[in-house]
């Protein structure tokens, strides 16, 4: 591929909103060739190639310079690129995908309302059962750092395979650290957030790689795309910041 490579979410919660934003900008995404291919382009922007990838893959692609720019969440960058500023430029928030990474515990833990409760409960759990309380999460690094900094008790971080919120019910963990927006998914799985349990606020952003190979024309292509997005985002009312 020549020209600027933009990593774009192929599925998941960010995709429909990214599609909507691009449509609002008047940017039409077309496929050249088979629908099954992961390459796309933008009508009227021949210098930009779109690579459809999972949002979780975007930070790695940008860090390795395999894409010039990409759309993904603050949460995924924080988890997978702790030294973000070395490899990424300042991101452009895109006014969608607002969510937070937070601790959630079973609703039936009526004695646990805040982080201090969880800390004490985990401490006693370890003492009576001889093993650590398990926290299932896809955000292993962020969860570990948060818990180590804020809690005296030791937890076991369990990588979640499949939906994180199902882990306690399935007996794979006692609590979770998960991405929460409306809280409906948590409630549907008989979980609840706790006071002081918010780890990070997230939203979707356009990230730009420092390590990719840039040329003047590729830079120009980025600037054109960027200013289109920036203009449209600025015009959107604040409460259209949809979860």
């Amino acid at each position: 591929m020549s020209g600027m490579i933009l990593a774009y979410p192929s599925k998941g919660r960010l995709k429909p909103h990214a599609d909507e934003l691009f449509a609002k900008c008047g940017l039409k995404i077309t496929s050249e060739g088979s629908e099954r291919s992961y390459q796309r382009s933008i009508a009227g922007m021949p210098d930009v190639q779109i690579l459809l990838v999972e949002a979780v893959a975007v930070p790695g692609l940008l860090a390795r310079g395999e894409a010039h720019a990409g759309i993904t969440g603050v949460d995924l960058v924080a988890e997978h690129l702790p030294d973000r500023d070395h490899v990424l430029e300042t991101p452009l928030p895109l006014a969608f995908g607002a969510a937070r990474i937070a601790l959630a515990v079973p609703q039936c833990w009526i004695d646990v309302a805040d982080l201090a409760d969880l800390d004490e409960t985990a401490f006693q759990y370890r003492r009576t059962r001889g093993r650590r309380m398990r926290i299932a999460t896809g955000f292993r690094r962020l969860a570990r750092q948060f818990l180590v900094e804020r809690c005296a008790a030791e937890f076991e971080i369990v990588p979640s395979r499949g939906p994180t919120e199902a882990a306690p019910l399935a007996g794979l963990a006692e609590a979770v650290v998960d991405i929460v927006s409306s809280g409906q998914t948590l409630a549907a799985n008989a979980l609840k957030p706790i006071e002081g349990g918010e780890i990070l606020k997230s939203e979707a952003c356009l990230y730009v790689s420092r390590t990719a190979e840039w040329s003047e024309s590729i830079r120009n292509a980025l600037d054109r795309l960027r200013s289109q997005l920036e203009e449209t985002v600025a015009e959107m009312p604040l409460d259209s910041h949809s979860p």
Partner: protein
Amino acid sequence: MTSRADSAIEARDRMRDRVMSTLADGDCERVQPSLLQPADDILSHYGEEIRARACVLSDAHGGELFLVPDYTVPVCRMHLDRGGGAGRYVYAGPVFRLPSPGQGEVPIEEEQAGIEVYGEAKDSKAEALVLRRTLDALNAASDAKAEISVGDAGLGAAVLDTVSMPGQRRERLRRRMGQPARFHELMQRFVGVQTVELPPDREHLLERFATCEEPGELASAILEERGIPHLGQRTVEDIGARLATLAAERYEPPLDVEDASRIGAILALRKPYPLALDWLKAQDEASSPEVAGVTETLERRAEAFAEVGIDPAEMMLDARFVGELGYYDGFVFSIRVDGVQVAGGGRYDGLPRALGGDCTAVGAAIWTGRLAARVEDGELP
């Protein structure tokens, strides 16, 4: 022709070798535990200060490893794996920790040398031996004056025992013994000076549990009331029991202000050892069996020091000092040179027990890197 850098490295090696041979004094085995240890096994035995700054890595199977922040736990594990009992070891090697806030981004690596003595009689002789050898080893590295500070983890616990209070309260204060600010905060809360305001629904919940005979049943009934399904390993008994304890604490009469200030006064004790002992013996609390027990231990320890040529008048006794590593449960000491901590150690009989063994344990570590750097820079003689 050796470069200046070579001779700096050689000088450090020689200092480390002098320190090691002084510590070993012909009767210790040199060991070299792995720098990488499994987190599950070893890391949990350190206190939260160390755990929070441990350099943790993942292995290929999703398990966790960490770089040693200190050698005592790995050496203890090694000793137990060999059968436990009596044994004397020395070691030297790097230790690793993440920087504290404000120390920058780069993990910190320092050189340490140390001695561990297992399976000797549980009296002050082994403690005096370890302290003596540590002082001698420091002398072999630098002529600077050593400032010795000692404590005993049993003193704070004994003082708390002189005041009647719910077990939970005592336990929480004990956990915070080494952190003066948090200890004080807890004391204030228990005295009632800082009454915590609870959200109304929490207050109502606790009220229900204060007068309840069967907390597990009540918890179960509340879940049914609220249409909340029970899930997970924590039982309704666990949940109810905790609420009953919290209720008891909340509605328990506050800690007596007099008691609190007497505890505070004793824990503020920091004097040269003989003066500290005299002061302690003069306190009312000294008549309680727990404190009397500790003062006797402190006296016998002073005698044991004197027997190996350490003058107790040359060291400070600090009632708050319990050691930051989390496994010390008796005698603990720290040595500073020119204001910088260069050695620390103590008794940690609880650690072999926690690792599944059963033997006494006393040890110390010296930060040879810190010492060497200052000697090289000419800051220390």
